[in-house]
């Protein structure tokens, strides 16, 4: 019960902080969005040139460093890696494609719901559907094999780079990009963004909060622990949105969203399925990156590169809707997910059914 209380408090703080970040200047229903913010960072670094989504978002560095410092303090920091890194890299790209077709990671999906954006319901159903498919393969022995202890310094590189990104955004040299209009220009002050990221990073590391883990563990083990955190975010963000007068119920004219229900569903189905294969949602990948898990670092790098590809190839949706290229990319993502899931599931690998891990 104590555990559940902690994750409810963590979810509550995340929900309220998300709305506060909007109050301080972030785009509406986007206090936090891991996919959108990594996409903005890709833009800020010049990996794509979409002028409206360029900003090195301090929330991301805060999340990584919050998890880094608390895991050092708790003695949970450990450099590990080597569990199918390149598959994880590509899965990072795939999850990003799904998220930018829907326009949000699972965290923003629930923040959109808490802000009254009914388009997120199609996303939520798709997300659940994607998780369901992923769990089907987990039950058939899907795994990306084990990770290993690696040289200690390997795990420190990513957190240190995040400190470098803070310096970069604060110093604002002319070679990085800042949006002058659009969502990339809507931002809370740097220190507030960073502080919010640090707080959420600590809470998410301590509670293991994971947006995909809630539904997954409920289906797999009837374990409600993570799901409780997921629901707490929705409830507290909803209350805070009402309090600040941000709540706006409806389908039309929702901020940074489109009304194409089918593609909202399919986009989040990709995110749900891909995240189950990765073992955690984009938020969880960032937190693990701060704890020394370099497989998660590779996944985040996949998301960053994916964001560049997505905007350079015109795959991302906008308020006008989904693009033709985005639809084709989504189909490719589903095929990739299907192949990866099938070939890495022990039940389907003919004649190779082994008792993994049995001594």
């Amino acid at each position: 019960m104590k555990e559940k209380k902690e994750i409810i408090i963590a979810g509550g703080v995340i929900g309220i902080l998300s709305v506060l970040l909007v109050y301080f200047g972030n785009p509406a229903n986007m206090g936090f969005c891991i996919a959108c913010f990594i996409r903005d960072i890709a833009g800020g670094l010049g990996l794509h040139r979409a002028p409206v989504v360029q900003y090195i978002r301090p929330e991301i560095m805060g999340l990584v460093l919050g998890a880094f410092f608390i895991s050092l303090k708790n003695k949970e920091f450990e450099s590990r890696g080597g569990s199918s890194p390149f598959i994880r890299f590509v899965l990072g790209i795939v999850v990003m494609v799904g998220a930018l077709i829907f326009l949000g990671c699972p965290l923003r999906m629930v923040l959109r719901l808490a802000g009254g954006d009914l388009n997120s319901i199609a996303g939520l159903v798709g997300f659940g559907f994607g998780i369901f498919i992923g769990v089907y393969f987990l039950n058939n022995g899907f795994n990306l094999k084990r990770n290993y202890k690696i040289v200690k310094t390997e795990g420190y590189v990513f957190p240190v780079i995040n400190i470098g990104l803070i310096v970069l955004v604060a110093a604002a040299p002319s070679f990085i990009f800042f949006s002058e209009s659009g969502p990339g220009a809507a931002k809370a002050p740097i220190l507030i963004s960073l502080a919010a990221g640090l707080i959420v990073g600590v809470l998410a590391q301590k509670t293991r909060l994971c947006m995909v883990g809630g539904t997954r563990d409920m289906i797999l083990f009837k374990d409600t622990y993570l799901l409780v955190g997921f629901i707490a975010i929705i409830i507290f963000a909803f209350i805070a949105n009402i309090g600040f007068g941000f709540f706006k119920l409806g389908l039309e004219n929702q901020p940074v969203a489109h009304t194409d229900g089918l593609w909202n569903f399919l986009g989040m189905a990709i995110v749900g399925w891909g995240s189950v294969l990765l073992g955690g949602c984009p938020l969880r990948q960032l937190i693990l990156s701060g704890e020394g898990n370099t497989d998660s670092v590779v996944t985040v790098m996949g998301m960053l590169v994916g964001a560049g590809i997505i905007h350079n190839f015109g795959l991302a949706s906008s308020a006008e809707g989904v693009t033709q290229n985005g639809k084709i990319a989504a189909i490719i993502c589903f095929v990739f997910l299907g192949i990866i899931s099938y070939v890495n599931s022990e039940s389907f690998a003919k004649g190779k059914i082994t008792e993994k891990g049995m001594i």
Partner: protein
Amino acid sequence: MVRIDTCGMSCPQPVLMTKKALDKNTGGVEIIVDNQVAKGNVERFLKNSGYKVSVEEQEEVFLIIAER
């Protein structure tokens, strides 16, 4: 008692492997985990499934013993 090694496996594999092992060995199993997250998850799963759980801290790993 059957012993399974979940070292290096990422979420939710340690719990899945535990569940699978318990399906075949309903009396109990021993599970080796190498991190706090897996330890917490496996312990919670075992307790929810009605097992008595004890944990031995060994060099760099935890040995979780689940018995009816």
